[in-house]
């Protein structure tokens, strides 16, 4: 029997690298401007150019795609996208692990590389949710939950993250919702501050500026007004929720010993740990609702594989920037504890005190996060890598560039923790 470490974050013997990574602009709204194929094509073409990869260099195409089957009546997306990229004639697959699809795509690419079946893999995430009726969107988003144990009893997707929020507020703020919800709002404020500098974000604007545009100068008055920030599922309000988003993201992953790695790449970013694991579904069965055990388990394994001591101070000494899965503000609180960046009982406070802002102890979601950058479900995991690679290469706008980075970390969750991935990147 394999050890937990070897099963969840197996050794990376071929020293895999990301040779190129790209994301499209993220957009929302009622009118669709690009199809699944357009978004995948745009992101993948850019990633391949960055990697110096021609179609004949790619040995395997992995397409991460979540909602197309329900929302667009489109399955079989791997060949659909291969056609657009000149990749007909190689193996391809489409995978779906809800919001973690992109990272599971990367992890799966690594299994093919480590097996020696592929030297270079193209991983593309693509999602289209605009122009789809709200009821259909709700149905699609709920599809990451349990159709028999959760959905019939009114557990919507925001509802399930609200239930994490309630339990966290119960345990960390003694059930004081006013205090707890204010801490959650600080996460949204911080994410939007970061997104201002992200040209590819769906909402590159601060909540302060949004409030002013609507004639409200006090941002807390704006956030506490049920007309501007209505409850979606108590204690989560509109500004606690990520939007529905159209977007694509892609990366070329290669073994360091591959010909492509030697020849054409401008820069390579090393993947030093890739952890993927599975948690309970339905949510109610999980041993705790103030942590996602699968994310905690993935983080532990990733740290061990990367040679990082699993202790808050030690982690923050090495990991200088992280993109975490903040589909809701309560999800970011879970992430802070599951990544062990802060003690489990201090995560709400850490968020509130600005310890996760740029310039803080550990900048979280310098892209704006899912909250403000947007959350094109299956593309999200790859888009996180895009931001982290920009950070590691020093290519972020100065206001959000983190200095002296050693390692960067991505944390991506599917559903309510049924799937979880943690990847750690290092500049070569």
């Amino acid at each position, binding site marked *: 029997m394999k050890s937990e470490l070897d099963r969840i974050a197996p050794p990376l013997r071929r020293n895999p690298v990301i040779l190129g990574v790209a994301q499209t602009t993220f957009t929302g709204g009622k009118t669709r401007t690009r199809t699944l194929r357009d978004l995948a094509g745009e992101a993948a073409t850019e990633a391949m150019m960055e990697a110096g990869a021609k179609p004949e260099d790619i040995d395997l195409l992995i397409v991460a795609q979540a909602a197309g089957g329900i929302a667009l009546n489109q399955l079989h997306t791997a060949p659909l996208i291969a056609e657009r990229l000149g990749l007909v004639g190689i193996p391809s697959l489409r995978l779906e692990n809800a919001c973690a699809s992109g990272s599971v795509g990367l992890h799966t690419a690594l299994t093919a590389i480590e097996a020696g079946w592929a030297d270079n893999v193209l991983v593309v995430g693509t999602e289209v949710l605009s122009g789809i009726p709200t009821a259909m969107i709700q149905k699609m988003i709920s599809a990451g939950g349990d159709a*028999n144990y959760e959905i019939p009893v009114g557990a919507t997707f925001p509802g399930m993250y609200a239930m994490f929020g309630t339990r966290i507020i119960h345990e960390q703020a003694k059930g004081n919702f006013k205090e707890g919800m204010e801490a959650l709002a600080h996460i949204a404020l911080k994410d939007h501050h970061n997104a201002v500098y992200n040209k590819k974000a769906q909402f590159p604007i601060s909540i302060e500026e949004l409030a002013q545009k609507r004639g409200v100068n006090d941002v807390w008055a704006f956030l506490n007004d049920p007309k501007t920030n209505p409850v979606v599922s108590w204690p989560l309000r509109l500004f606690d929720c990520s939007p529905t988003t159209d977007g694509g993201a892609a990366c070329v992953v290669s073994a360091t010993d591959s010909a492509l790695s030697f020849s054409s790449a401008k820069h390579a970013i090393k993947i030093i740990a890739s952890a993927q694991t599975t948690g309970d579904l339905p949510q109610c069965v999980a041993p705790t609702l103030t942590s996602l055990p699968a994310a905690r388990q993935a983080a532990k394994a990733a740290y061990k594989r990367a040679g990082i001591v699993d202790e808050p101070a030690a982690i923050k000494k090495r990991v200088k920037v992280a993109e975490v899965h903040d589909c809701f503000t309560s999800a970011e609180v879970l992430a802070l504890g599951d990544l062990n960046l802060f003690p489990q009982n201090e995560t709400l406070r850490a968020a509130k005190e600005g310890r996760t802002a740029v310039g803080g102890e550990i900048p979280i979601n310098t892209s704006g996060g899912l909250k403000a950058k947007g959350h094109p479900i299956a593309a999200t995991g790859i888009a996180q890598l895009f931001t982290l690679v920009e950070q590691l290469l020093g290519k972020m706008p100065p206001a959000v560039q983190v200095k002296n980075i050693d390692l960067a970390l991505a944390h991506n969750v599917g559903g309510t923790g049924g799937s979880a991935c943690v990847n750690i990147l290092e500049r070569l």
Partner: protein
Amino acid sequence: MSAKTNEPFTEEQWLKFVQQKQLKFVECQDCHKMSVIPFAVCTTCGSRNITWKQASGQGSIYTYTITAVPPPELQAIAPYVAGVVELQEGLRINGIITGVENVNSYPADLVGKTVSIEFLELDRKSILAFRLNA
């Protein structure tokens, strides 16, 4: 072997029980593992000595939310409280929480409050719910 052929250890059977207004779970007679997700072979010890048990229906609220934006099927009862209830047996299960006053004004923390099972009837379907004890 306690398996009765008319009550297989399937999720479909669990759903049937709910429609008959019964909350059941499976228990392994050898290692006593309990689960609301039925199995015919114990996922802990491998035993086939499995039995259906009726839940007491008594428990307390582990966590909850007040849903202002309901799915279309539950529009009629919105805004409603959805929760995770910890049953006396130690198992947790999702259900609607009824009997909460002033749902619209968001009452104080309900975590830990005790509840008793009931079933709602909506569109001729039975929905698992728990009523806040007086």
